[in-house]
């Protein structure tokens, strides 16, 4: 997976965000999004360790050990930001006050089930806020490569990895295109660049409907 492909996925995901929305960004590809949003896009970034209004990474003389995001990286706080405790932060998430969660996944089923926290046979010792976010956010956008590093499809008929939540993915964005959950099933709605439907089929385990929309201007 090249950095270029990751940037492509992040750029497409950024287009899903609308002014005024509150967005929680997972680690990996979603974290490329802030630098792709222009100034004054009106999107507010929430981090579950207790900050609404995450700003850009600090430069060296702005570093503050008390100011990190959920990935434990230093951040800044924008004007209009608010700090809160973890119970309040997850009340926001579980209570449906986060408009969009953008996050990575190991597998997404064609029914929208998400597996993004554990690999069978390995440690299941870190879940963090993954389950809360996919259950609580109003819209869940999964950003991931179409296949795993060993070449297996990540969009699958049934998740074989431990589930994070059922029927939770609203949008799945890979380097090949975009799926949307419609009537309980992922539908391929968009192709990236010169990708063909057959390319997506061969990178997917299972059958899906195709209902291509006009790609919005990038």
């Amino acid at each position, binding site marked *: 997976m090249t950095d270029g492909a990751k940037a492509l996925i992040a750029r497409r995901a950024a287009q899903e965000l609308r002014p005024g929305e*509150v967005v929680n960004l997972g680690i990996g590809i979603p974290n490329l999004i802030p630098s792709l949003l222009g100034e004054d896009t009106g999107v507010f970034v929430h981090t579950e360790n207790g900050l*609404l209004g995450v700003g850009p990474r600090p430069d060296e003389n702005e570093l503050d050990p008390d100011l990190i995001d959920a990935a434990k990286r230093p951040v800044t706080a924008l*004007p*209009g930001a*608010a*700090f809160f405790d973890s119970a309040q932060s997850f009340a926001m998430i579980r209570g449906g006050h986060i408009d969009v969660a953008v996050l990575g996944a190991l597998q997404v089923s064609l029914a929208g089930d998400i597996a993004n926290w554990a690999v069978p046979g390995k440690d299941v010792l870190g879940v963090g806020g993954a389950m809360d976010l996919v259950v609580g956010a109003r819209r869940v956008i999964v950003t991931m490569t179409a296949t795993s590093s060993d070449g297996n499809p990540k969009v699958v008929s049934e998740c074989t990895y431990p589930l994070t939540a059922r029927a939770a993915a609203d949008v799945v964005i890979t380097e090949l295109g975009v799926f949307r959950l419609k009537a309980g099933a992922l539908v391929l709605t968009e192709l990236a660049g010169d990708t063909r439907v057959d390319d997506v089929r061969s990178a997917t385990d299972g059958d899906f409907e195709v209902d291509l929309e006009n790609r919005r201007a990038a």
Partner: protein
Amino acid sequence: MTVANGPVEPEAAVSAIRSGDTVMVGGFGLVGAPLTLIDALAEASDAADLTIVSNNIGEPGRGLGKLLRQGRIKRGISSYFTSNPEAVAAVNEGRIEATLLPQGTFAEAIRAGGAGIAGFFTPVGAGTLLAEGKEERVIDGVPHVLESPLRADVALVYAARGDAVGNLWYRRTARNFNPLMATAATVTIAEVGEIVRTGELDPESVHTPHLYVDELVASR
């Protein structure tokens, strides 16, 4: 979400309230009550059959007492109807339905409604009149009642200060139920005493972060 377009007139804001809606209204008695919004609802809206979730139903002819006199309240969910004798009379004459909750259960149920909690067990009220019809369960030897969350179509809250995106700061005991109700409605309308520039509120002291607030109205 957040406040999209800056402050609006109270009459425009309360037009979000439709007949049959459930409306939460902040305040402990009239302290911290959004009186500008209540007045607009009384004077510029004809939404009726309202279910009101508020610790009290105002006072005679004041605050929610105005809506009560107008006969627009179908049901009250409160901990203390008694502070308005006209509300007590309306209940006793069958003009409004009353659901009484212990004040802590009332507060916790609103918090639960905003926090995505679908039910909670509290020891308060177990074995009393107010537990009738509710599931009871003995946990660690103590009887508990299962209480359900409260949610509303619209919440009307009052804050002494708010910034342009909708962060709110409450003053002294005017805070009370306002921050909870701001979290528990589909549409939250905040009446604000003083609207300040975004960035003027200390981020450590914001009581209601703006993602809970949909509309901002200046107090009259």
